Structure formats: structure tokens, C-alpha cells
């Protein structure tokens, strides 16, 4: 369960996200959609406790990620945009290191590593050096590291990027399997991915949530693509109404957010 309430993050005068709120339930896969620079990564970094928000609250399994940070972080598995893999380590050693760091007990270490590796199809590369793996395998190692401590909440920043079609299908299957007893938030550019994998979609544009809807409630005959483009077009038209907001949009374009 993730509750995001009124999240705002400003880098100096640049507002990356503004008053973002949504909820992800257990057993649900939430697709987090938006154009580049919309604030997806910023939002995910705040949820995972990587950085604090300027305003607003995030509750993960009922724990505040700011005030009960360590406890909340224990319950989150996070795959950042670039898998945080040490290129000089063997896959097995890396997963073992991450498991220890995430607080897996000494006795459960072997089992946790084996299980995560099996789930992500890494058995064949356990002795390989991470830096020599292909992008697809590194992505899978990152995903294995995210699930190694069996967290109830998973935050995945573009998990299928760089994978070949067969791997994409496998990873999607894996994520769907994981979501049964977990809360998953998944960001992506790929719209069909959302309709295939997710139960709920949150569309964010220019730092604002423009749509939060269950997939089965989206109007019949309307593809996700239409919904996405319509939501963003509405938002942009709306942005032209007030001059102050227009300035903000321009400021956002001239100074790219650090992602």
C-alpha cells in the first residue's frame, strides 16, 4: 500500500512536481505514465526515500518515508532507471551484498539470493562479472536486487527498457506474479505495457497528476493512447489559461530537471 499525498518537489525555483497525490493498493500494479521530464523519476525517488519532498507526505505500508525512513525503506524494493550494479562484482556476490544491506538475516541469505536469481532467470550468469553483462541482463540483475529481500512494495523505474521482446514478456510475467501479494508501481513510456500489465494508471504531465483511473474503468472504445494524449492536451490547454502557469511551463522547458 502506497499513499502519496500532495507531494511537491522544487529544485531551487524549478518545480519538478506539484501536489502529486495517488494511491496504490496491495495486489495492484500501478502504471505511472508521462512524457519525458514529467516528474516520474522524481516522484519515485521521493517514495523510495532517496530524497525528501519539499511538501507533502508518502506512506508506505502505513509508514512515513520521511519520519520512519529506515523502517519504510526496509519494505521497498527499488529498481532505478539505471540499475545500480557494481560493475566489478560477480552477480552472486552483488545479490548477496544487496540482500545483506536490505537486512536479510544471515540464515536466509542463500535462499533469498537463489530465489531472486531464479525469478529473474539469472542462474546461468551467477559467476559472471556484472560489468560484462549485456544491458538486458544488467536490468534483470537490478530487478533481482530489488526483490531479493521480498519487499511488500516494489518501485520499478522503466523495468523493461533495453530488454529483447522475449525478455520483456518474461519480465512482465514475473512482475505480474510478484504483484499478487505486493504493491507495484511501474513507470514506463510504453503504453501497451500498461494495458497489458497494470490494473491502474496514473498519468503525470509537467509535474501534475492529470489522470488517476482503474484500467477497467476507462471508457470503452478508447485506447490508452487516446486517453494519454487527451489528458495531456487538456492539461496543456489548461496551462495556457493563467499567465503565471504559462511562465511555469516555460521555466520547466528551459531548465531540464535532473533525472
Amino acid at each position, binding site marked *: 500500500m502506497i499513499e502519496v499525498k500532495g507531494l511537491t518537489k522544487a529544485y531551487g525555483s524549478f518545480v519538478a512536481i506539484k501536489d502529486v497525490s495517488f494511491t496504490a493498493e496491495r495486489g495492484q500494479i500501478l502504471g505511472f505514465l508521462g512524457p519525458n521530464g514529467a516528474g516520474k523519476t522524481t516522484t519515485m*525517488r521521493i517514495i*523510495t*526515500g*532517496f*530524497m*525528501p519532498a519539499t511538501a507533502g507526505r508518502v506512506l508506505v505500508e502505513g509508514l512515513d518515508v520521511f519520519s520512519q525512513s*529506515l*523502517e519504510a*525503506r*526496509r519494505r*521497498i524494493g*527499488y529498481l*532505478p*532507471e*539505471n*540499475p*545500480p*550494479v*557494481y*560493475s*566489478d*562484482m560477480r552477480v552472486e*556476490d552483488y545479490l548477496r*551484498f*544487496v540482500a*545483506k*544491506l*536490505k*537486512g536479510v538475516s544471515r540464515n536466509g541469505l542463500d535462499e533469498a539470493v537463489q530465489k531472486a536469481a531464479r525469478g529473474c532467470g539469472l542462474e546461468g550468469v551467477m559467476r559472471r562479472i556484472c560489468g560484462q553483462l549485456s544491458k538486458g541482463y544488467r536490468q534483470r540483475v537490478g530487478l533481482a*536486487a530489488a526483490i531479493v529481500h521480498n519487499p511488500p512494495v516494489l518501485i520499478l523505474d522503466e523495468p523493461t527498457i533495453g530488454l529483447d521482446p522475449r525478455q520483456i514478456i518474461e519480465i512482465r510475467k514475473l512482475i505480474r506474479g510478484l504483484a499478487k501479494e505486493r504493491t507495484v508501481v511501474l513507470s514506463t513510456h510504453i503504453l501497451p505495457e500498461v494495458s497489458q500489465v497494470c490494473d491502474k494508471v496514473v498519468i503525470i504531465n509537467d509535474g501534475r497528476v492529470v489522470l488517476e483511473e482503474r484500467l477497467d474503468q476507462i471508457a470503452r472504445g478508447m485506447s490508452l493512447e487516446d486517453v494519454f494524449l487527451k489528458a495531456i492536451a487538456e492539461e496543456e490547454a489548461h496551462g495556457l489559461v493563467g499567465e503565471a502557469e504559462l511562465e511555469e511551463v516555460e521555466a520547466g522547458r528551459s531548465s531540464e530537471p535532473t533525472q
Partner: protein
Amino acid sequence: MRNTLTIAGRELQSYFVQPVAYVVMTVFLLLAGWFFFALLRRFELILEMYAALRNQPGMQNFNLNQAVIEPLLHNLAVVLVILVPAVTMRTFAEEKRTGTYELLLTSPVRTGEIVAGKFLAAGVFVIVMVALAGIYPLILVFFGNPEIGVMFAGYLGLAFVAVCFVAVGLFTSSLTSNQIIAAISSFGALLLLYVISWPAEAGEVQFAGLLRYLSLPEHFAQMVKGIISTQDIVYFLSLIAVALFLTQRSAESARWR
């Protein structure tokens, strides 16, 4: 504690996998051997000279500790000014660049534990390196009769110097994601620490006492002479504490940027 050890273990492992550790140790031990050889040769020459001149008092005051070990230790401390930044520059800068820092900061680990782990790993590494350079004076024990207590104090001093340098190096590395910048700024800071008392030596200036107190060789020289005083130990420990505190603050601040 467990987190600190986990991080320290990975860190030490990476020193040896990326052959930084071997290169740094080889360079350090080679240079130490060369200094040792040169100083010993000089020692022998002066001794022969004294003998030829029948300079009894000169010969009596001339000893291995002062003529070989003291200058050797001072030289090695200067070598550390250059080598330690090469060891510590990676610590934070590389993690920030490759994105693994995101893994550390989103794990249930305190920033202090991250800093402690990295400090422990680099500290153990330089202490081992300094200890290995102890083989040279050990040779003297077999072939001559240097004062072992004085020698030990000197090596303890060198270990303190190395660990202080590690703490400063961690701090500069935590400030940037660029390893070159980390190395150069830590090299600059260490060299400054080395020469900070120079204006005071040229004559009485304001704050001369303070400059001398801050000067690292001032305290190191005492230990090299065989004097282990609380004042010097406190100096080294406070330097380490201040540098680590700043590192912790700066590592934590990565979240706020």
C-alpha cells in the same frame, strides 16, 4: 554495525578487484625500498667518513634511528599525501557517477554507517600498507641495533597520518561525482595541512601558535622521535573526527540536492 561491515567488505573487495590496491601498494613499497636503500647507503658513507676522521663523539651520536628511520618515515608520509587520494577518490564519487549511490541511500542503512564502512575499509587498507613497509626497519633489527620502541612509535605515527589522510580523502570524495576533482582537492588539502605552519617558521606572525598546532608534520615529528603524547594523539583523532563528521553531513546532503 552489520551494515558497516557489509559496506566495508564490499569496498575492500573492490580495491583488490580493480587493481587499485595492488598498484598503490606496489608503488608505496617500491618507493619505500628505494628511500631505505638510499638512506642506508648514506648512513654507511657518513660512518666511514667519521671513522677516517677518527671523530669519536660524532660516531657515538650517530645512530640508525636518526639517520635512517626518521627520514624514511618523513619521506613515506609525503608519499602518502599523493597515494591516499588515489585510494579514496573513488569512495563516494564513483558510486554517485554509476548510480549505485541510489542503492545505498534507498537501503535501510544510515548515512553514518555508509561513511563508517568506507572509512573502515580504506583505513584497514592503508594500515596494512604502512605495516608492510615495516619490513625495512625490521631488516635493521637483524643487522643492527636500532631502538625498537622509537621505531614503533614512528610507525604508529605514520599509521595515524595515513588514517587522517583517508578521512580527509573521504570528505573530498563525498563532495563530488568526479574522481579527478576528488583526488586533486584532497591532494591540495593534505599538502596544505603539511605546509600550513610555514609562515610561522619564517618568523613571528599572527596565529603562529595556531598554525603550528594545525600543522600535521609538527605532531608527526614528535611521534617519529619516539614521543607518544596525548596532545598529538588528540590532534590526529580530532582531525579524523572532524573530517568524518563533514563527510557524513555532505553524504547526507546528497539527498537534499
